[in-house]
C-alpha cells in the first residue's frame, strides 16, 4: 500500500514537472524566419499607427516632425522587409510575440486617443522611448540571433541603428518636454 502511494506521488510529480517543462520550453521556442518577418512587420506597423495619430493630434512642431520621421522610416523598413520576404519566398507567420505586440499597440493607441495637447505629447513620446527600447531588446536577444536567412539577418542588423537613432531622438524630445 505504502509502495503504491509512493509510486502515485512520484508519477504525479513527474507529470507535473514535465508539464511545466513543456510550457516553459514552448514559451522559449525561438521564432523561425517567417515569424521573425511578421514580428518586424507588426512592430513597424504599430509605430506607424502611433505616428499617424500624433501627426493628427499634436500642436508641437518638434513632436510632429518626430512623428513624421517615424512614419517615413518605419514605412521604409516595412517596404524593405516585405520586398525581402517576397524575394526569399517567405510568408510572414503570426506568433505569440507578434500577437501581443499588436494587441498592446491597440490598447496604447486607445489610451493616447483620449489625450490632448501637452498631455498627449508627453504620453506619446514616453511611449516611443519605452517602445523603441523594447523593440531594440527583442531585436538583440531574439530576432537577430535566431534569423536563419542571411538577407533577413542583414536587414535586422541594419534596422538596429535606425531604432537606436529613433530612441535617441525620442529621449531628447522627452527631456525638452519635461522642462
Amino acid at each position, binding site marked *: 500500500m505504502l509502495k503504491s502511494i509512493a509510486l502515485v506521488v512520484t508519477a504525479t510529480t513527474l507529470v507535473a514537472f514535465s508539464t511545466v517543462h513543456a510550457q516553459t520550453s514552448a514559451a522559449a521556442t525561438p521564432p523561425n524566419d517567417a515569424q521573425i518577418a511578421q514580428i518586424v512587420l507588426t512592430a513597424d506597423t504599430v509605430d506607424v499607427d502611433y505616428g499617424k495619430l500624433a501627426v493628427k493630434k499634436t500642436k508641437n512642431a518638434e513632436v510632429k516632425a518626430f512623428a513624421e520621421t517615424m512614419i*517615413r*522610416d518605419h514605412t*521604409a523598413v516595412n517596404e*524593405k522587409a516585405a520586398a525581402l520576404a517576397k524575394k526569399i519566398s517567405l510568408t510572414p507567420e503570426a506568433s505569440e510575440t507578434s500577437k501581443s505586440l499588436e494587441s498592446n499597440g491597440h490598447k496604447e493607441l486607445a489610451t493616447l486617443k483620449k489625450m490632448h495637447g501637452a498631455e498627449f505629447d508627453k504620453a506619446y513620446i514616453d511611449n516611443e522611448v519605452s517602445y523603441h527600447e523594447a523593440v531594440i531588446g527583442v531585436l538583440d536577444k531574439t530576432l537577430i540571433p535566431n534569423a536563419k536567412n542571411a538577407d533577413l539577418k542583414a*536587414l535586422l542588423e*541594419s534596422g538596429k541603428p*535606425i531604432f537606436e*537613432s529613433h530612441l*535617441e*531622438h525620442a529621449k531628447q524630445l522627452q527631456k525638452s518636454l519635461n522642462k
Partner: protein
Amino acid sequence: MSHPTLKHDRQGADYGEEQDAQNLHAAIESEEHDGRITIKPFSLWVLVILGLAFFFAGFFSARNGTHFSAASVDSGNPPLLESTLPAVEPGAHSASAVQAAVADANTPAVVHVAMKNMKFDPAIIEVKSGDTVEWTNEDITPHTATATKFDSASIASDKSWRHTFTEAGDFPYACTFHPDMKGVVIVK
C-alpha cells in the same frame, strides 16, 4: 536512423584510407621514375630559361606600359589631368603627386560622403572651392543633407545628391529627419 549515417561515415573513412594508400604508392613510384630519367641538370636549364623569359617579359611590358601611356598622352584628350587625378592619393609625396596637386588646384573634384548607419561618413570633409560633394544614401530610410546654404530635400535609399561649393567657409549641416546625424563641409 542513426545507424545508416554511422555506416556511411565508416565507408567514407575506409575509402579515404584506401585512397591515401594509393597516393602513397603513386608517390613512391614517381620518385623511382624521376630517378631513372635523371631530370636534374635539365630542370636547371628550364629554370634559367624561364627566368630569362620572365625577365624579358617584365622588361618589355614595362617599356610598353610607359610607351603606351605616353602614346595616350600624345593622342591627348584635352582634360588630361582629370584622367590622371583619380589615381593620385591625396597627401602622397611623390613628384607626380605634387605635380597633380598643383594641377588639382584648378581641377574640380567630386568628393563622396556616404549616409550609412544613420551617420554621415566621413562626417567632416575638406574640399576646395569649385569642388562638388556627392551624398549617397546607403541606408534603408530616407535622409537629407541640409544647411542654411543648401538643402538636398529627401534622398531615398540608394539615391545620391550633389552640391558644388563655390565659396570658402565652414558649412555645418544635418539630416532634418534625424537631428543627431551631423556633418561639416570645410571649403578652402
